[in-house]
């Protein structure tokens, strides 16, 4: 279980960070997902852990997203915690050479902006399918929707990303 969690925590954190755009909230989401997986499904065979973990993570992300949307609707005067925090947290590429670092930073910044601007369902469908490597069926199970919905989300997300990243993409 420890090695499994270590293998998924990095990507899970970034997925949560893309969705909620706040570092502490993303860490809370990942910790909750880990805790729930260990406590509820720790006795299951390890082949079942990845889909269960992704499902729990998606539930947590959507819960956080909904609660944030509600609080934004009910208290519009409150400062939004996501402003200007997520993008700077992700890139820490000081060890790379100067030119490569600049190029990667720019690409990363553009990608982060494009991903963060996607609707959450499209964003998560894209990340699960094309970054985590789940197939359409597993993505649908993780997101609790039909395979057709996943394909629609993917198609729309790809269209937006292609449009947003057309220039200056490495």
């Amino acid at each position, binding site marked *: 279980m420890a090695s499994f969690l270590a293998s998924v925590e990095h990507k899970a954190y970034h997925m949560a960070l893309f969705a909620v755009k706040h570092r502490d909230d993303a860490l809370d989401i990942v910790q909750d997902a880990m805790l729930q997986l260990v406590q509820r499904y720790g006795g299951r065979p390890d082949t079942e852990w990845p889909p269960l973990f992704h499902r729990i993570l998606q539930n947590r992300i959507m819960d956080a997203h909904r609660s944030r949307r509600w609080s934004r609707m009910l208290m519009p005067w409150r400062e939004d915690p996501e402003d200007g925090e997520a993008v700077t947290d992700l890139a820490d*590429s000081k060890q790379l050479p100067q030119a490569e670092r600049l190029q990667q930073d720019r690409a990363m910044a553009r990608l982060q902006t494009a991903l963060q601007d996607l609707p959450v369902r499209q964003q998560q469908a894209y*990340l699960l399918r094309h970054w985590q490597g789940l197939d359409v069926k597993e993505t649908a199970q993780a997101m609790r929707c039909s395979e057709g919905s996943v394909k629609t989300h993917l198609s729309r997300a790809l269209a937006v*990303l292609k449009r947003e990243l057309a220039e200056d993409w490495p």
Partner: protein
Amino acid sequence: MNGDDEQLKLITDIRRVLDDTPLDADSRTALQRARGHALQAGRRRAWRMPWLQVALGASLAAVLAVNLPEREQRAAGIGSANAVASAEPTPATSPAIASKPKQAPVRPASSKQEDAKPAAIASAPAVDADLLENLEMYEDAEFYQWLSEQDVEGAIDA
């Protein structure tokens, strides 16, 4: 390069950039702490569950051990009492038998052992009616046997 190839290249490039994204030190430490916390909670739960199962099993066994024999006794007592009640003739069908007065148990006043038996039976919550009746008959026979022996001794004394 057609549309599918472009799309595939875009997906590959995005994946490469995402894979190359490093974590800052604070986030890495926080994730490690979160993982340790989750695993520790899992170990605590794993320790707690067998203890809970053993405790529940023991308490259930204790409850059954206390209640089950008593229930069985009660059920047997009620069943035999019902059987006796249904076997007894009604007054309308056999008035002669029904009008016969019940014989009171006669016991020797001097015997302490004989005194203890009915007291023990009376204290039992569920008494088998057949058993009680047989015991009374046995005590009667024993008493008459004892009485006849007394008479013989008395005659010899006389």
